[in-house]
């Protein structure tokens, strides 16, 4: 039997129940009166108005800015790492890849608490060790925006690296050699040959990192001491202590919209078939 629309039925049903239906419900909630639970009440845009007038700009800014900065940082670190791992394939690269991958299997909160213990002043692992071993006293970036940034990069780096590894693997060695033979500088090789060929992997890595960072909350909560309030924290507050589900739903829809605005144009430009070598 040739795979046809029937084969798509299970995933279509799954997406309908697990994705489309919740989005519709959240969208509906976002249109009812603030702090109400009655889905049959009159519809209103009051929650969306409040999202733009009641100080939610800061949380949106920090989430989007943090996601962009983290994506850029991860890309800058992951590119040479991926090149190195690809070049050394079979010569210890698997061990390094494994060391980077293994932490993904540990709960994010546990990893962040570990990082918090590392950064802590006084008796923290770094500060305490430096003090005990060398008599050096240092401060800490814990409970600052820098700690949030470091946490975001630490947690999301593998999500950039592994798609990028696939992307780097798409670059034929002879293309680089040919470019060099024709007199291209290293910068030109990077810009004209390597980046365009590795773009699908880079784009997938960037999308994964960006989308996960937009929804990240634990870094600001555990490492940042809430030096900033990210949008997911603001949403959580509306759903929990405020018991204002419609406002939380409106903010959720706006985050979904921001994500869609970023994701769909990028996805439209990526040839996934090429990435999986079809």
């Amino acid at each position, binding site marked *: 039997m040739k795979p046809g629309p029937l084969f798509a039925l299970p995933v279509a049903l799954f997406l309908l129940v697990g994705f489309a239906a919740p989005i519709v419900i959240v969208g509906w909630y976002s249109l009812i009166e603030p*702090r109400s*639970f009655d889905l049959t009440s009159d519809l209103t845009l009051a929650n969306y108005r409040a999202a733009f007038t*009641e*100080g*939610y700009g*800061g*949380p949106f800014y*920090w989430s989007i800015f943090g996601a962009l900065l983290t994506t850029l940082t991860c890309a800058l670190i992951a590119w040479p790492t991926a090149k190195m791992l690809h070049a050394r394939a079979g010569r210890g690269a698997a061990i390094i890849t494994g060391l980077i991958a293994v932490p993904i299997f540990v709960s994010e909160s546990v990893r962040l608490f570990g990082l*918090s213990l590392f950064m*802590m*002043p*006084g*008796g*923290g692992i770094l500060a305490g060790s430096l003090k005990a071993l060398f008599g050096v006293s240092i401060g*800490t970036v*814990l*409970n600052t*925006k820098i700690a949030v940034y470091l946490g975001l990069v630490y947690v999301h780096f593998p999500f950039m690296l592994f798609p990028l590894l696939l992307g780097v693997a798409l670059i034929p060695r002879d293309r680089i050699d040919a470019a060099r033979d024709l007199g291209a500088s290293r910068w030109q090789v990077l810009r004209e040959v390597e980046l365009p060929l590795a773009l699908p992997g880079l784009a997938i890595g960037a999308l994964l990192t960006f989308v996960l960072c937009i929804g990240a909350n634990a870094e600001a*909560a*555990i490492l940042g*001491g*809430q*030096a*900033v*309030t990210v949008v997911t924290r*603001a949403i959580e*507050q*509306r759903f*929990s*202590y*405020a*018991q*204002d589900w419609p406002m939380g739903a409106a903010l959720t829809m706006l985050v979904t919209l921001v994500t869609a605005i970023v994701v769909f144009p990028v996805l439209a430009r990526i040839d996934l078939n090429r990435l999986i070598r079809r």
Partner: protein
Amino acid sequence: MKRRPTVPSSLRNPMSGALSRRQMMGGMAAGLAAAGLPMSARAQADQIALLTWDAYADPRLLDMWRKETGKDIRYEIHISDPTSVNRLRAGETNVWNFINLNNPWARQVLWPEGLIYDLPRDRFEPLYAQMFEKFAMPYDWALSEDGNNLLGVVQRFETFDFVVNSDVIAPATAKDEGWDLFNNPDFAGRYGILAYEDWNVMDICMGAGIHPYKPKTEADYAKFEETARRWINNAKMITTDFVQLNLAMLNGEIDLYFTGGTYTASSARAEGATNIYAITPNSGPADGKGGINWIELNSAVANPTGKEATFDFLEWITTPDAAEIVARGNGNLQPVSQMAQDEVLSRFSADELDAIQWDEFDERISNAVEFDIIPDYDRLYDIYSAAIRDRG
């Protein structure tokens, strides 16, 4: 804490009176017989579900219940009192059997809205005779407004205000200064906030000189907003994890934090960090008091499935063995009303009693106003959460 006179052993160990060995064996046999039923039927007949604060989710307590009764038990931990109240309002009365909330909710909301059952008075009132004098019947928070219905069983209670590093701030000074410590510019950047946000709202009221449980004027709201923004912006850190705050105090990052009390300080004190010190102010704007005393009331959700098992559980948690586990729930030492009994109190070592600052417990309770529902909470919370969003 004024203790009750000695009570008959049958009352001290109500499980023995309420549930004979034969009944117990019968219950266990029924449990075994039910093992042959389809899972859904068995689960409905046996299982009880707790919507609770963490002490009742202690695995030792749950295992002991399962072992003694053969009945399964599951739980979910509250986010906040109002969140769980709204879950019952939204129809989850058929999901939960047991709910433990702070004192005002049962008589002011849950019972009037038909969300909980009343308890048989002849069976449950004697349990109050085993508690501290404070809870002597008629105990208002456990009764309906008209006094006719018993709505739950009191167990955990405490004051919950703020915690200082006693090496930096002398406890006597902290008690005298009270909430003004957080208004003192010298401590800007030297304190943390435990983001139990409904409690934060009450504390900021206290710091602004406003009674948290009385209606507010526009001037009160303005004062609340000014205090909220200042306190939130001046905080060194805000977290939902009190262990982080205790560590930050031990590492010298902060000198004090709110909200906190025995619940947040006792485990660190029990580990030897006795400079982590729970403070209840000597005075404040709430009828002259500055502390807040919460009392948890354990109630039976109006869920016909598992009703009797829930009544059994409510009685069982007051037995000395169960009460001891609740007092040690999830590793945090916490006073329980059954500590009025020598049989329960004697299970705690001198160091453990020091960890809960037992010697000054009466003083703290007497300096605290009893927890209540905050009028216009929504408006105050919106001011608070806007200040949080603007931080940084």
